[in-house]
């Protein structure tokens, strides 16, 4: 019988303690962010999809079309091509396509690039109705960034 009484009294006490805790929480301020109006602050190393870096003056991408990032990528999302530079020295980038549907944001490409030509963008809310929007043309994106720069 003692188990019976102990269950009732200990149980009732634990139920009251539970109620008091949630009751106290009821009057505490709200913790959550109201998303569309309060956007989160992104840390420095946030990993959005990759984008090209241009050197300040000429606005041309630093990329020398060495293809290291293309080889390093585990899921083969990068497809880049370039041709001989008119000045005869090195190559110029013509197209840099990133298939963001299979990219797993591992950072191998950014690490494998020795010419500081790739970095992570800070874009986190890219949504679309069809997959083709995720085939990103990074050169076009770079041009856009150059235009909106002063």
């Amino acid at each position, binding site marked *: 019988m003692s188990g019976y009484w102990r269950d009732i009294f200990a149980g009732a006490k634990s*139920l009251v*303690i539970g109620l008091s805790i949630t009751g106290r929480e009821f009057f505490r301020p709200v913790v959550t962010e109201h998303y569309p109006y309060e956007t989160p602050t992104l840390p420095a190393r946030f990993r959005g999809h990759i984008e090209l870096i241009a050197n300040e003056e000429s606005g041309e991408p630093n990329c020398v079309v060495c293809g290291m990032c293309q080889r390093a990528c585990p899921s083969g999302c990068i497809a880049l091509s370039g041709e001989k530079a008119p000045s005869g020295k090195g190559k110029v980038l013509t197209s840099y396509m990133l298939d963001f549907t299979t990219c797993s944001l591992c950072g*191998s490409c950014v690490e494998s690039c020795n010419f500081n030509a790739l970095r992570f963008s800070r874009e986190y809310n890219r949504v679309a109705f069809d997959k083709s929007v995720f085939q990103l043309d990074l050169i076009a994106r770079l041009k856009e960034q150059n235009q909106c720069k002063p």
Partner: protein
Amino acid sequence: MNLPRQRYEETFVLNLGPQHPATHGVLRIKVTMDGEYVIKAEPVLGYIHRMHEKIAEQGNFAQFMPYTARMDYLHALAFNHGYCLVVERAAGIEVPERAEYIRVITVELNRIASHLLWWAAFLLDLGGFTPLLYAFDDREQILDLLERTTGSRLTYCYFRFGGVCNDIDDEFISGTRTFIDRLRKRLPVMYHSLVTGNIILIKRIKDIGIISTEQCRRYGASGPVARGSGIDFDVRKHEPYSIYPELDFDIPVYNEGDSMARYMVRMDEIEQSLRIIEQALDKLPDGPIMAKVPKNLRPEAGTCYAAVETARGSLGHRLLCNGDRNPYRLKLRSPTFSNLSLFAEVAEGMMIADVLAFLGSLDLVIPEIDR
């Protein structure tokens, strides 16, 4: 609390199907039931099978790293650590001291986040909605800390062979210390007196799903499932790796073997992980965070095995290399695969509500089972 076997005239087969709120993933359990009692339960796997082991054989060693985080996304850093360990052991790479400490700190933080999410989901299965929000409130602090250093929140790709890719700064260290004090203050109130002491919860998981030590050994169970049945087996103490021998922490072991024992093992493990992080932060040395490692690694032929303690048990990598750039065969021994294999034997005779409480206490992550 296994009730006597019922007579079987009118039984029906219920599909705790791949799409069910309590399976937390695409696990299907074909349950033959007589009214409320389960007569035979048979888990059906493979709904999220992606053939990780074949992918490992395609690319070179470094290219498999992001895939390790996609197996057990709740404790992704331990999977990174396991894969790094087996390749470093095969190729004989020495990891600098500071990188080892950073690895242990981030793995233990990730372990706490995984236990907090297990606790939230387990109580959701038992019908309590509010604890989930309190646990996610704490887990959010960890995710922000880890996002500052690694760049991602859930599927990390932070470890490299020979070290880690980013260094931790002072803000991370001070943030971790405030997190530790905050969680230490909240644990007794929000977790133990609100939930662990609650009579409804105690009645709900006490003496439910009792696993004997012999069953654990025959099925090869590990982690909190084995430690809940009185087996003192934790890979960090059993096969010490990294700098765990230098840190003093103890392994919670309970002998009852029921869901309550597994619950208490995981709650005590959160406190132990806090202790580990504190000691590791105090002893954090300076120095490089990456060893000199050739770009494409070619470990010489032979076989190698490395085990790591994840939140769910001992994760093993059996690696066979034949000297060229990609692994010849990489076997991933996932802890939940063995922990779930004893489910069919223990779940007989229980009622449907207890079967779900027992399933929750096993802490399953389905992509880790199906690989």
